[in-house]
């Protein structure tokens, strides 16, 4: 069942929730006051790597009829697009690098290499999703208006097609993202303002036209007789990026342990309760540094949702502090290897295509808040583990 009161779900008193909120505020202040040249170098390097990958890929594809060149070019282009969309674009548009005062690396000016216009993304994602995270009926990312991802969403016969919709969404993810801010649900319910819809469609069309022309017309044409092989390479790179970003993003809020909430939770929600909802509603996955950069630091989904506008390269150190707080307050910290997290998502999607509730995805409240960890226990804390608190 979706949660209507985070504090009682977490067995914390209002005072404890506020205290936890102050601890999160402190993390934010510490990071904000220590942003500097190293952080700036991180994002500038990644941007340079992205551009080199793109140039490398595009140039290699001038020999796209030669299979090894096709493979190498496609791989570089796909890697470039993934890097740009996930670790660079998504995070820059969150304002993580606005403090650098650099108009070229700023949430107000960034446009990313995908069909979704930045302006619409910032509305549907930064505002709607990050404010109303996992609140059913408010956050359109709960199923994206086409999937049933929690038993709290009523079953409809159309959900029988869920395995197919899911596969299509994975392959065409970029297009799903492009249409996301239109709010499919609102259109279905005929609640959408037609003037606003026309404005949005215009914006999407302007962006789509340029993106499609580049990948499916201009670059193939530039390679002359290799038009078709360059076109398939570009399409493949886009699909690889689609599959990867789809998988990463579905691991953020759909695995077991990432809770959903009702609109009642939003009533009089304090900043501290908001933090708690972000923590309970998000799921991390573990991986190497390379893996985290390749996934746009979304393996730190919890940290990202607590502090969406702090630089992503600082998430690993933030994670240590968040884990310690979860230990201290007996709160779940949902994490697992990516294959397991995605496996749970897939299982949920299949199960919920049929009517009824999902047995093993019901939220399990953490153990009652029985004791505080001592400083020594915190120091000896071995690292992330399964979400349940230790037995009483």
């Amino acid at each position, binding site marked *: 069942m979706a949660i209507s009161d985070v504090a009682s779900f977490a067995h914390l008193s209002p005072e404890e929730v506020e205290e936890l909120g102050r601890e999160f505020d402190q993390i934010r202040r510490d990071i904000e006051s220590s942003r500097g040249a190293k952080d700036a*170098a991180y994002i500038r390097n990644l941007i340079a790597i992205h551009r080199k990958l793109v140039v490398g890929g595009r140039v290699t594809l001038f020999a796209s009829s030669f299979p090894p060149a096709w493979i190498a070019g496609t791989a570089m282009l796909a890697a470039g697009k993934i890097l740009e969309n996930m670790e660079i674009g998504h995070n820059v548009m969150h304002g993580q690098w606005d403090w650098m*005062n650099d108009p070229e690396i700023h949430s107000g000016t960034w446009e990313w290499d995908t069909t979704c216009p930045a302006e619409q993304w910032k509305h549907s994602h930064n505002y709607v999703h990050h404010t109303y995270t996992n609140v059913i009926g408010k956050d359109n990312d709960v199923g994206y208006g086409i999937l049933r991802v929690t038993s709290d969403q009523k079953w409809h016969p159309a959900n029988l097609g869920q395995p197919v919709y899911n596969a299509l969404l994975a392959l065409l993810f970029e297009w799903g993202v492009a249409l996301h801010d239109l709010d499919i649900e609102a259109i279905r319910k005929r609640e959408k303002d037609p003037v606003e819809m026309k404005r949005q469609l215009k914006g999407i069309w302007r962006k789509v036209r340029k993106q499609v022309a580049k990948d499916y017309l201009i*670059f193939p044409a530039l390679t002359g007789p290799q038009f078709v092989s360059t076109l398939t390479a570009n399409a493949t790179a886009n699909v690889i990026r689609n599959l990867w970003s789809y998988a990463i993003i579905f691991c953020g809020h759909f695995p077991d342990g990432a809770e959903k909430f009702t609109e009642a939770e939003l009533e009089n929600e304090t900043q501290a309760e908001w933090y708690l909802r972000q923590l309970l509603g998000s799921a991390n996955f573990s991986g190497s540094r390379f893996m985290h950069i390749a996934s746009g630091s979304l393996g730190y989904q919890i940290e990202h949702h607590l502090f969406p506008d702090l630089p992503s390269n600082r998430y690993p150190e933030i994670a240590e502090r968040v884990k310690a707080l979860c230990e201290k307050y007996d709160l779940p910290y949902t994490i697992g290897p990516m294959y397991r997290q995605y496996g749970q998502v897939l299982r949920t999607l299949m199960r919920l295509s049929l009517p009824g509730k999902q047995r093993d995805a019901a939220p399990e409240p953490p153990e009652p808040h029985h004791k505080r960890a001592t400083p020594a226990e915190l120091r000896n804390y071995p690292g992330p583990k399964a979400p349940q608190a230790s037995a009483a």
Partner: protein
Amino acid sequence: MSPTATDLVRRVASRVTTPLLPDDYLKLINPLWTARELRGKVVEVLPETDDAATIVIKPGWGFRADYQPGQYVGIGVDRDGKWHWRSYSISSTPDAGENTVSITVKAMPEGFISDHLVRDLEPGTIVRLALPQGEFVLPDPPPAKVLFWTGGSGITPVMSMLRTFDRRDTMPDVVHVHSAPSREQAIFRDERLALTEKYDGRLRSVENFDDEHGILDVTKLEDACPDWRDRQAWVCGPAPMLEAAEKHWAAAGLIKHLHIERFSANLTASATGGHVTFAKSGKEADLDGATTLLEAGEAAGVQMPFGCRMGICHTCVLPLKKGIVKDLRNGAEYQENQNIQTCVTAAAGDCVIEI
């Protein structure tokens, strides 16, 4: 290539690089090959005195080299990952036939940026630039009789003018009255004296060193240049000097002859401070009464428009949606729905700015 041909090539190329610009790739080869944000490379840092240096910058693409002597340029430097902007008068002449532009900077006490520019800036550093602007310029042709009155580093725009007269061989009848704290701290002294010698009879130079001669006030100015009423005057220096000049020329009914340039706004008024919200970007900040809204916005990561940063050019003007702000130069208050110059105003209570 004519600009239109360049533009056309760019537009075509950007179809290939969308959503980026060709510049975003070209700057990987050469950091100056981009016109997206104007850039320059520091070629040389030439010490002028103990606490002043001339910085020679080679501008990148998109920088208009046809500035007028007397104008200033915005310069952005990266300090600890963050871009900081200041404006400085250009001291070079556009007619030197070089593709560089120079500014001359005096390190101010506790000047976070000026001190860095004078003492730590390495040749090869990439800086950001804003196009030259400013109204402190000479008409073409220059008036027959000119008075320059400069104080301290206020000499920089006038040096650009003198160098330009020299280059074009159009030196009119000039009296240049310059005051500096001491002989050692007089910027461009050798060059100024050399020009005086070269244009003997046309250029007369009067020096005042505060430690030797005391402060140069308007009475002394009249002594140094008795025919000041017959001259068009260009005056640049510290705020008290400019105020004295304004009073003096106004009293004589000759305010039209006076052209002044402030090199820092005289922000002496104070406001109470408050909580500022930047509405569109959703950023917020708690401000004291001395921090300008421009500085606050930049510190909060808002992309604030700016130009001179001293209340002259109005590039930084933004609508005030709520609250009251105060002009730090004169204490004037602005209410909601007025347009405010963010570079010289501070919060007087909580306010909301539309950006």
